[in-house]
């Protein structure tokens, strides 16, 4: 089911959480709402769910205006950050809840509910826990039960608030993969909120970057990474090095490949990803020296320092495969020449 948000704004007292959000999500996508904490992403998710009312604007689910619908009438499934499982019910009763509270006329028979609940528990691979209470489960298990519970009402839209936020790193990794494949299987339009850009890139088919209550950019993970729309997105997604062009000589800029033209604006900044920097040993004096390096597994991260007159020294990070770095035979303190393969310029 497609989701269309038009002109959504929300204030909490004097604090403006969302300004004029316009967003279209086509059917079947798995969308990440990505942004730093306090950017309004959870508020936006809660507004789509109907757990929060928008001050103005419209919410259309599958072309139907649902702005004034109560959360129970919107046909959404919501997975809470801390799962919000019903503590006083077994896992089975938790999952069956959504079917049992249905109006008598549309409620499935108890046998049907039992069958479906077990099927859902099998889908999340936890049917063997159906007699347990939520307090007896691990975080990852609770997460999956919360998901099964939300899916039980056959929602047209699945909304997940920081679905992996409260889990430890290894469980999180597994669950990310699992969520992706589950989405593939069910193909229900899903939106999840996260502050972790890596998670958004890994799981989502579409990423919406939010900052201070506004949408900065929307696109596929590759689009956002390769073509950041502005400084914020460029800095927030992945690692970025900043070069203020006016700090360097034109010769050096030309040599590295950061040069634009002779009359660039003084505040022009070039953003360069660590893996887009090539390093060679310099024979003469250069503004950049090698400070240190760390092993990241297959890659090595090289810390360089910009030594500029009248500026505090700033670090630049470059990444390259281990073998390549060894062949350069660099030592700490060496002057290096840079070759920038790819950069984004922002004014």
């Amino acid at each position, binding site marked *: 089911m497609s989701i269309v948000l038009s002109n959504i704004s929300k204030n909490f007292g004097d604090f403006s959480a969302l300004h004029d959000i316009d967003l279209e999500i086509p059917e079947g996508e798995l969308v990440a709402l990505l942004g730093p904490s306090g950017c309004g992403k959870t508020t936006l998710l809660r507004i789509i769910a109907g*757990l929060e009312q928008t001050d103005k604007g419209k919410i259309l689910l599958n072309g139907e205006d649902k702005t004034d619908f109560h*959360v*129970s009438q919107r046909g959404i499934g919501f997975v809470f950050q801390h799962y*919000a499982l019903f503590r*006083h019910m077994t896992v089975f009763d938790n999952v069956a809840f*959504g079917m049992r509270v*249905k109006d008598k006329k549309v409620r499935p028979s108890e046998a049907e509910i039992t069958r479906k609940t077990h099927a859902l528990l099998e889908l999340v691979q936890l049917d063997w826990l159906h007699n347990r209470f939520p307090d007896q489960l691990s975080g990852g298990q609770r997460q999956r039960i919360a998901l099964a519970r939300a899916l039980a009402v056959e929602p047209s839209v699945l909304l997940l608030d920081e679905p992996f936020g409260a889990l430890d790193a290894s469980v999180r990794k597994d669950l990310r993969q699992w969520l992706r494949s589950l989405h593939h299987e069910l193909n229900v339009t899903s939106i999840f909120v996260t502050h972790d850009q890596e998670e958004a890139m890994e799981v989502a088919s579409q990423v919406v970057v939010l900052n201070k209550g506004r949408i900065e950019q929307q696109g596929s993970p590759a689009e956002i990474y390769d073509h950041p729309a502005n400084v914020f997105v460029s800095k927030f997604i992945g690692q970025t090095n900043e070069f203020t062009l006016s700090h360097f000589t034109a010769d050096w800029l030309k040599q590295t490949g950061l040069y634009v033209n002779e009359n660039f604006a003084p505040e022009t900044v070039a953003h360069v990803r660590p893996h887009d920097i090539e390093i060679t040993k310099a024979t003469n004096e250069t503004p950049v020296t090698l400070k240190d390096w760390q092993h990241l597994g297959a890659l090595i991260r090289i810390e360089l320092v910009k030594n500029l007159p009248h500026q505090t020294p700033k670090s630049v990070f470059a990444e390259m495969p281990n073998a390549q770095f060894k062949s350069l035979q660099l030592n700490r303190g060496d002057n290096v020449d840079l070759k920038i393969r790819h950069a984004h310029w922002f004014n």
Partner: protein
Amino acid sequence: MSQSRIMPAFRPTISFTLLYLSLVVLIPLSTLVFKSFQLSFDDYLNIITNKRVVAAFRVSFSTALGAAVIASFFGFIVAWVLTRYPFVGKRFFHALIDLPFALPTAVAGIVLATIFQPSGLLGKFLKQHFDLQIGFKPAGIVVALIFISIPFVVRTVEPVLQEFDSRMEEAASSLGATRWQVFTKIIFPNIFPALLTGFALSFARGVGEYGSVIFIAGNLPYVSEIVPLLIITKLEQYDIPGATAIALTMLVISFLLLLLINFSQYIVRKRSGQL
């Protein structure tokens, strides 16, 4: 070394607990038991099956039960209002709730008796419009007991309501539950054990209450005479064996009832995964 415990200081704390229970609860109460042993079993039976005594027991336990039920209902609503809604004068209201704890019960009794007696402020109104008499009737006892026991319910339910995870309500709503379903299936089952505790406390308090009741009850034998009053009456007549026999019976019944409530609470908690 014997097995080490995860929680330290088991020995000193259990010793203290036993000492405390012995000094304050067990020794005085066992004295009561020993005193009543001075009676033969037939005498004991004669005393407690006396019509007036049986009637007093009926009055005491039925009014305490009725008051506990009503206090639980209203106490729950008061706790709900205090935790759920912001309103002007909430702090004042909070202090007001605890007042029955602090007030000498006799003062409460006299005040209630004054307004509920047939010529009193409320008593007159109820008599004229509903032909209802509260003062000097068993209903008056219930009113006094509600007054005394509401804070027990409010103060036991309130913290649980406060800690209640409102995300559970949101989750239930998102699954399509109506407001009423959210209340009956999510909120109430989570609050119920605490409410049961509040009920047990107010019931226990109601059974033993003396000061506030005697002024409003009218103390008519067979109708509105409570057991504690009967005990005092016996003591005043130097009928100490009679008083102890009644007291012991009351003690045993109260203890059994509280045990029953605790047991049902255990079942409720067990079924809702809290144990």
